[in-house]
């Protein structure tokens, strides 16, 4: 089974987010970049599903050369080979369009993304790939099992879950629970340096949206402390002052 895992390069979760250029650009100074945590889950599941010579896992990233350490990390974790489409990831549509073009020349049985990237939280790439390739897509899945040419999937819904079956090939966005992220071992780290990483040019595509500015949330005021033996005071404040109960 040939699996493609779409990966993105994101600021690590401890990053304090700030902006430059009059709040129009994300400030990357001093920021550590990592493999998107949800993509790590997708990659781990892909490796489990192809374990024991049962196929291959290609990782694909749309990014400039600064993303290569993250791509090598994915190879160290256990991907077979990698592709980098040499372009700034303008937005989800741009990314999906580039990846779809690649897939049209290189078909896969299973295409996975993380449910969302932790920088823009769009949850869009999986669905866009599905639409561009006329394949079913399931966004935000909690469980993925494959039996021959069919998958049984659990999808998150409000207050519960939905169990569905989908024939291969399809696209899915993985959430927590699909697999435990894998830690690269020494052998993985060594082999990552020599595993194939193909760099290809992007194709032209018109984009429809752009982020024109950012804002950090207003800092909250000083906390009002209530004595621990007087919770009735808290209830009163929540009702009369905050008006939330």
């Amino acid at each position, binding site marked *: 089974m040939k699996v493609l895992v779409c990966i993105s390069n994101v600021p690590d979760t401890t990053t304090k*987010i700030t902006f430059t250029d009059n709040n129009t650009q994300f400030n990357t100074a001093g920021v550590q970049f990592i493999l998107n945590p949800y993509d790590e889950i997708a990659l781990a599941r892909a490796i489990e599903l192809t374990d024991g010579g049962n196929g291959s896992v290609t990782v694909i990233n749309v990014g400039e050369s600064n993303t290569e350490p993250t791509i090598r990390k994915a190879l160290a974790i256990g991907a077979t080979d990698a592709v980098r489409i040499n372009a700034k990831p303008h937005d989800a549509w741009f990314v999906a369009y580039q990846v779809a073009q690649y897939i049209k020349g290189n078909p896969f049985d299973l295409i996975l993304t993380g449910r969302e990237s932790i920088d*823009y*939280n769009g949850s869009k790439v999986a669905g866009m790939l599905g639409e561009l390739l006329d394949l079913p897509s399931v966004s935000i899945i909690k469980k993925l099992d494959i039996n021959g040419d069919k998958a049984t999937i659990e999808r998150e819904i409000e207050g519960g879950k939905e169990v569905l079956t989908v024939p291969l090939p399809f696209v899915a966005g993985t959430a927590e629970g699909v697999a435990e992220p894998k830690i690269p071992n020494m052998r993985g780290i060594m082999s990552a340096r020599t595993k194939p990483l193909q760099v290809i040019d992007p194709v032209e595509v018109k984009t429809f949206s752009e982020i024109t500015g950012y*804002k950090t949330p207003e800092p909250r005021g000083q906390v009002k402390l209530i004595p621990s033996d007087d919770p009735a005071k808290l209830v009163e404040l929540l009702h009369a002052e905050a008006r939330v109960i």
Partner: protein
Amino acid sequence: MSVLIYAENAEGKFKKSIFEAVSYARAIADQTHTSLVAVSIGNVSTADLAALGKYGAEKVLNVSNDKLKDFVNQAYASVIAEAAKKENADIVILSNSFSGRGLTPRIGVKLQAGIADGAVDLPQQQDGRFTVKKTAFSGKAFATVEISSANKVISLTPNSYKIVEKGGTAAIEDFSPEIKETDFKAMIKEIVRSADKVSLPDAEIVVSGGRGLKSPENWKMLEDLADLLGAALACSKPVSDAGWRPHSEHVGQTGIAVSPNLYIAVGISGAIQHLAGISSSKVIVVINKDADAPFFKVADYGIVGDAFEVVPKLITAIKQYKASA
């Protein structure tokens, strides 16, 4: 030109987040003096469909084809896109629910539309430019998205826009678009939904527990507090990683982002990743025995104390308040 709103139903009923989305869509239609049409797919009663008029829908396209009675992402996206084309809708609104997130990108591609997902405010339409504010960096910031395409898709974050009742009933029109067989490849086997529990992404009040609760056996008092307040339960990442609570309760940068009116955090220190997920909460209450816990820096109200003493007392105080109200 008009606005189309996809009114998602759960077991044939519309939730509060859908009424919010209809109100939101109505306000957008008013901005450009155009009409608002809703589209509903599945088995929803005539009365409920007509009641969407209360929130400003002039008409509801009712898609009650039996093949579409259960959610099928590919097919539903096709139906909604067809509805948009039929109604000449250049703006399509959805609620940013789990199903909404599967539909939005496909509809965007079908309509060659720019997308603002997870909007928290009405669009600004000025000087020929169309911008929408949404959250970014998992709740650590806001981003303004400008959409340059003629068609636009916006998904609204639940509990971000207040319901506005205008009164009125919507006209109902049956709609049966042609749908390709190949749109039905995914098949639902089972839906498991606990109707009594409040769903976290929609919740107005959230009660959340962290490692300070020491073990999963101690969650009963949080469950009681949540029941009393009609709140959803949540937890920090270490708690769900340890298997004490399900992943669906994990709130944080790599979990759910919530935007309740009230977030009560019990025994959670307040790591930056957790704070990201709750930054849109209107009021934050922190209960922690460590006065130096970082969470107190973003709290509106706080109690420094042992959760096992404070929470039971809080439960009693709320019961008394409810009894006297």
